[in-house]
């Protein structure tokens, strides 16, 4: 253990209305594996981006090798030896391993590339990592595990001293994971600083020397691996009071309105659950747990390979969103800009888009009915817009979300699926959306809500399903609905 190679002091990053990082101070030492853990939205990615220079902190300082870093940018950071490996690899599939390792820093003269030298050096680095890959192989022909190793080799060839790895084992098979552990151990022994981000406790306890917990953009604590255990980490990760006020919950819920039995497809595994009339059913899980994939399968966006759906006791086949809408379902997608709204079109166009059959006779649109539909919902949902002819892209996030919601309410659907309903929305608009959701179930509609915000999930849901890696790990209700319990079920 030595002096900190990389020292973050009081790093803060503010976005309008959001404190992504709030006074974070961490030391990273040479020759250690330092893990950072925290829930979705704790600030891990933002922190990494300030270290690699992709984002400039609003305040605070970064000292690297004893020198204060200012005006960091990714190119500079790379030169200084700070490298990062993300889940989406930065490789060029059609080029060779050696070409990728030296991409942007090719060896040779001004015009010619010295392939022989590149291949030789690549072989050196690869054997250093204990890997047997021909430098002349094309990256696209390699398995994901080997591609990741090429990424690591690329970092090493650039003389990386700090290597950041963001959820590296997500795409790997178990044998590839073992190989990765060996490489991480090797690199550590060679003096590299490895900043490791993962949700998987097995890995964290297998690899780390020290573990830092973050929560809500704040630094919480750094612990030695030997001195802590999973439950302590979990309680540090969630240890907040619930704070915000949520509308009172349902006093009673009705009969089953949607039953999912044994639903499977390449992304989700044998899911079964029931949605009752008048309830808000939350779905919790980490990124990649399959929540969005589950609702997309139910809504007919992605195909199902096994399982059945019943609506009010009747078996139904949903192969396309058209079918789902026919059964009075609606889906407010996670990415409202790409999938929810037609940004270039106006509010009126968007609100009426899924209910054109209701405002048309024999295929001809009633312009007056359409205008009334729009103005009615603008009023009902308090959508802040200069008018129904305003392009949706000009509205704020919260109001865009309300437009998408209005579109579905206009279809008179009974079952609404919200995927991250208040992501990127300010506090005021959030409260409005919560109130709207409670009103809807008060009218005996039923809601499925995916959320990564624990307080919201617990505050709004009557019951919560927890998913992990494509399967359902359990269900909690009433007193059991605590952040610790849910997070534990999402990660065990």
């Amino acid at each position, binding site marked *: 253990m030595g002096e900190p190679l990389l020292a973050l002091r009081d790093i803060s990053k503010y976005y309008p209305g959001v404190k992504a990082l709030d006074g974070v101070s961490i030391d990273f030492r040479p020759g250690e594996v330092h893990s950072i853990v925290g829930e979705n939205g704790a600030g891990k990615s933002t922190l990494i981006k300030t270290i690699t220079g992709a984002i400039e902190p609003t305040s605070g300082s970064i000292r690297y090798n004893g020198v204060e870093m200012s005006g960091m940018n990714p190119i500079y950071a790379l030169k200084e030896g700070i490298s990062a490996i993300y889940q989406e690899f930065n490789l060029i599939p059609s080029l060779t391993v050696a070409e990728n390792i030296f991409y942007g820093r090719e060896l040779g003269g001004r015009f010619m590339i010295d392939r022989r030298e590149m291949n030789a050096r690549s072989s050196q680095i690869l054997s250093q990592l204990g890997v047997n890959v021909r430098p002349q192989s094309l990256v696209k022909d390699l398995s994901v595990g080997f591609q990741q190793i090429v990424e690591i080799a690329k970092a090493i060839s650039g003389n990386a001293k700090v290597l950041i790895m963001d959820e590296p084992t997500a795409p790997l098979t178990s044998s590839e994971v073992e190989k990765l552990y060996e490489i991480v151990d090797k690199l550590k022994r060679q003096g590299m600083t490895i900043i490791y981000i993962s949700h998987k406790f097995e890995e964290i306890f297998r690899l780390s020397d020290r573990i830092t917990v973050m929560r809500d953009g704040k630094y919480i604590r750094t612990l030695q691996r030997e001195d802590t255990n999973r439950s302590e980490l979990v309680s540090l990760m969630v240890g907040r009071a619930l704070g915000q006020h949520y509308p009172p919950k349902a006093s009673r819920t009705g009969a089953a309105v949607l039953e999912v039995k044994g639903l499977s497809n390449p992304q989700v595994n044998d899911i079964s659950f029931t949605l009752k009339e008048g309830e808000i059913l939350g779905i919790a899980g980490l990124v990649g747990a399959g929540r969005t994939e589950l609702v997309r399968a139910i*809504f007919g966006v992605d195909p199902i390979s096994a399982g059945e759906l019943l609506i009010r006791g009747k078996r139904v086949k949903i192969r396309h969103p058209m079918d789902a*809408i026919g059964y009075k379902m609606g889906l407010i997608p996670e990415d409202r800009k790409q*999938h929810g709204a*037609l940004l270039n*079109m106006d509010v009126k166009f968007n609100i009426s*888009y899924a209910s054109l*059959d209701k405002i048309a006779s024999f295929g001809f*649109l009633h312009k007056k009915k359409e205008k009334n539909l729009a103005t009615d919902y603008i009023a009902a949902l308090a959508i802040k817009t200069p008018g129904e002819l305003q392009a949706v892209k000009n509205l704020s996030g919260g109001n865009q979300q309300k437009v998408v919601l209005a579109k579905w309410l206009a279809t008179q659907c009974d079952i609404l699926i919200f995927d991250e309903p208040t992501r990127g929305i300010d506090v005021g608009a959030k409260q409005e959306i919560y109130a709207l959701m409670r009103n809807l179930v008060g009218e005996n509609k039923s809601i499925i809500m995916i959320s990564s915000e624990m307080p919201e999930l617990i505050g709004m849901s009557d019951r919560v399903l927890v998913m992990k890696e494509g399967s359902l790990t359990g269900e909690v209700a009433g007193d059991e609905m605590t952040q610790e319990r849910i997070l534990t079920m999402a990660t065990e």
Partner: protein
Amino acid sequence: MPIRAILVKYGIYIVLLLLVFFFSVASDAFLSVDNLLNILRQVSIVGIVAVGMTFVILTAGIDLSIGSIIGVSAVLAAKLMLFGVHPALAFVLTLVAGIVIGLVNTYFIHEIQIPALIVTLATLTALRGIAYIITGGLPVYGLPEGYSFIGQGYVMGIPVPVILMLACFAVGYFVLEKTRFGRYVYGVGSNEEASRLSGVNVRKIKYIAYCLSGFLSALAGLVLLSRVNSGQPTAGTGYELDVIIGVVLGGVSMNGGEGRISGVITGILIMGVLTNGMILLNISEYYQLVVKGAVLLLAVSLDYVSKKRRVKVAHT
């Protein structure tokens, strides 16, 4: 409304008026009923096809095969009539052929997911070859007398092709502005995935758009056949360029989801007036091409630049 906004919104109409004004002054022969009808007749083939192309481009697609569909339709109808098929039946069969070509185009574009540019480039090539095969490379003569009415006849003093073109524009306007289907065309072009998630049958919309393009191209081919009174296998060559220029000039965005029929009519007329005016002023054909290209570039640049300014303002 501020001057800039007026220019942006009514720009092409102003350009058309300016051109008409300019040529009326520059040439005595321009502003006569005969000449104006001439212009309309000259653009009618391209105009009919432009309606179909508008639907396709609105869905964020493109149909480069229209010129070859015109050619195949002309020679197919000619050969059928030569073999004794009644002109009305030949007419209908040819229109059906146009629809079938549209089906083929859409199949490869939507089901196999090959970019529309490539698919219609391929059909453009193959269909031209088929046109040559049908005729053995030679023009087809000897059409029945009655058939010349479609391309050369008049109804109440107005050439039939012009009536057909105006009818196509009217129906196109009506469908795009006032029907559910028209709404979905705009929606699919604006955001195909969001449309699918909103329950729109994207597949159906695309099939209809390309089949409409095929149908109208076949109609244009039938009109052309009647005008020149012979089935030329080269008929329609290069027309896709004129059609696309007219459509883009009219404000239809290649990205889909944006543009109106009223703009397309104006775009087509601008090109027609420009061509006619330059002929009357004895400007050589070569210069005409340069002018056409320059007009397109200028018009689209103005549109894009003004859009960027609008976006900047919206964000401040």
